[in-house]
């Protein structure tokens, strides 16, 4: 915390010099002053950078060899237990052939790592707040970055920081990620579902958390970027003998923005013990603030506010798929662009409790 320590040192030393000069030695009780919200928001702590070198993670279920990975606790609509058995989950180097051969990967770059940091809210449009940020490697200038999609991207081809695996740099910074699971509802067990992403990049993603004074509540902003040249989903028999057609999404890009500086996400647990995520509706302008022709009315500030709200690309979510194919059929490309979440309220419900009340 540079500002804090710098200020304290200066104050303390001049105080000390003054005391010594005027009164000679006296017991000096160091005066600690509390910082105002504005001062605190100026605090820019040095963050922590994290890089994983030669990383490989794998776990799964193999009952014969004593390995179990289950996610439970969910209930179906008719009250039966839902259990997700994760047969395999891996994060490893590119070219893993759908998780068959796992090689190491580097996650994050030394010069652009994963970061945990307290940042100045004024720099990112959150006035007078210190904001806790967990961030993936940041995007770079297109002149020195790498194309987010291409597994053979070279410097200067795009805005992503993570580099793909290449002959000279086998690890690369883009992992293959995969998951095989099956879902059981009561005694009915589904087929195995396989999901694989090749050479995945999440650069530019972040989670920012801070506190809201009015609602006295934790609020946040979540941005998830996920780029992969190939995302595939297919289903196989339990014993792996036969598999259905592979749903293949080539050049898959998801840029999801949940909450923004104007409409942050609110997190809460209500009185009945249910988790609530909310994105509050944006306020409507007062009469006359926006002109009848949509142009500036009585308030320049209000007009600028709505102009920013409707035009800022950072507030919008995009999903693009370069080519969707199922088996040997191509369905071409699809795009959902410029989604702006106006209002969101998600609440978990305790079905077990509600069913027992019926």
């Amino acid at each position, binding site marked *: 915390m540079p500002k804090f320590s710098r200020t304290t040192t200066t104050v303390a030393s001049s105080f000390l010099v003054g005391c010594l000069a005027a009164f000679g030695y006296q017991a000096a009780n160091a005066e600690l002053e509390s910082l105002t919200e504005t001062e605190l928001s100026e605090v820019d702590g040095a963050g922590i950078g994290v890089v994983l070198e030669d990383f490989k993670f794998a776990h799964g279920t193999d009952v014969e060899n004593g390995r179990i990975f289950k996610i*439970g606790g969910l209930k179906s609509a008719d009250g039966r237990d839902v259990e997700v058995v994760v047969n395999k989950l891996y994060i490893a180097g590119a070219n893993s052939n759908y998780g068959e051969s796992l090689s190491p990967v580097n996650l994050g770059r030394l010069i652009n790592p994963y970061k945990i940091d307290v940042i100045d809210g004024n720099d990112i449009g959150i006035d007078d707040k210190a904001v806790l940020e967990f961030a993936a490697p940041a995007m770079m200038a297109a002149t020195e970055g790498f194309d987010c999609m291409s597994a053979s991207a070279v410097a200067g081809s795009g805005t992503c920081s993570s580099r793909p695996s290449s002959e000279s740099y086998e690890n690369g910074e883009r992992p293959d990620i995969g998951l095989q699971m099956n879902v059981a509802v009561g005694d009915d067990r589904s087929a195995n579902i396989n999901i694989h992403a090749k050479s995945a990049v999440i650069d530019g993603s972040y989670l920012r958390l801070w506190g809201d004074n009015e609602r006295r509540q934790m609020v946040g902003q979540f941005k998830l970027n996920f780029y992969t040249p190939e995302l595939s989903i297919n289903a196989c028999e339990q014993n792996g003998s036969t598999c259905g057609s592979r749903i293949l999404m080539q050049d898959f890009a998801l840029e999801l923005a949940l909450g923004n500086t104007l409409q942050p996400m609110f997190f809460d647990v209500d009185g009945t013990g249910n988790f609530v995520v909310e994105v509050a509706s944006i306020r409507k302008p007062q009469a006359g603030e926006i002109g009848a022709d949509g142009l500036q009315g009585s308030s320049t500030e209000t007009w600028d506010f709505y102009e920013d709200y409707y035009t800022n690309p950072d507030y919008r979510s995009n999903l693009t798929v370069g080519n969707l194919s199922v088996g040997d059929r191509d369905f071409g490309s699809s795009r959902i662009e410029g989604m702006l979440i106006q209002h969101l309220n998600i609440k978990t419900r305790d079905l077990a409790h509600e069913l027992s009340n019926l």
Partner: protein
Amino acid sequence: MNFRTYSSGVLRLLSVLALSFPGTGFGEMAQLDDGDLASVSGQGGIYLSGDISINELGGPVQNSYFGSCADTSKKCGARLAYRLKEGGGWMVLDEIRGKFSFEGLTLRVRAVDDGFAGDGQLFNRDVLEIGLPNIVRYDSVEFKLAASSTARPTDPGFQQTDIIAVEMQGDVILEGNLLVFPTGNP
């Protein structure tokens, strides 16, 4: 600075003594110059093995008096509660139990000045390196993520919705090095 001057003074004194009394055997110690001393590196780092067990079986005694994991009216395992709103409910990690065992977690400070496809040379600094243990053995590791109306299950009006429950068992492959370093300009 002072220390170095002082110590080289002492060494000089010792050499003088050694020269004056050759029979005492001081003569075999040679003074290192600054350049040589700078290249001396202590054997650094820590190697850790062990296991962490959190209420794996509910402790050494299980009965109706001390409590038992089989007793459904009670909770078994650690609980971590976090409140998201003033006067609101609690987000909890509940019934955390099980044993993690690992062999060979290493900890050291490492100077990085090459590798990483050119990044190492640009970076040229020290990092804290945590060497992951390759295999972590999970023994009946369980935890639940839940939302709860009260901090403790024994508080009045307790209601809880389990969002997910995770169960892990067996060997987990966890390879690589975790490099931690400060960023920004402190």
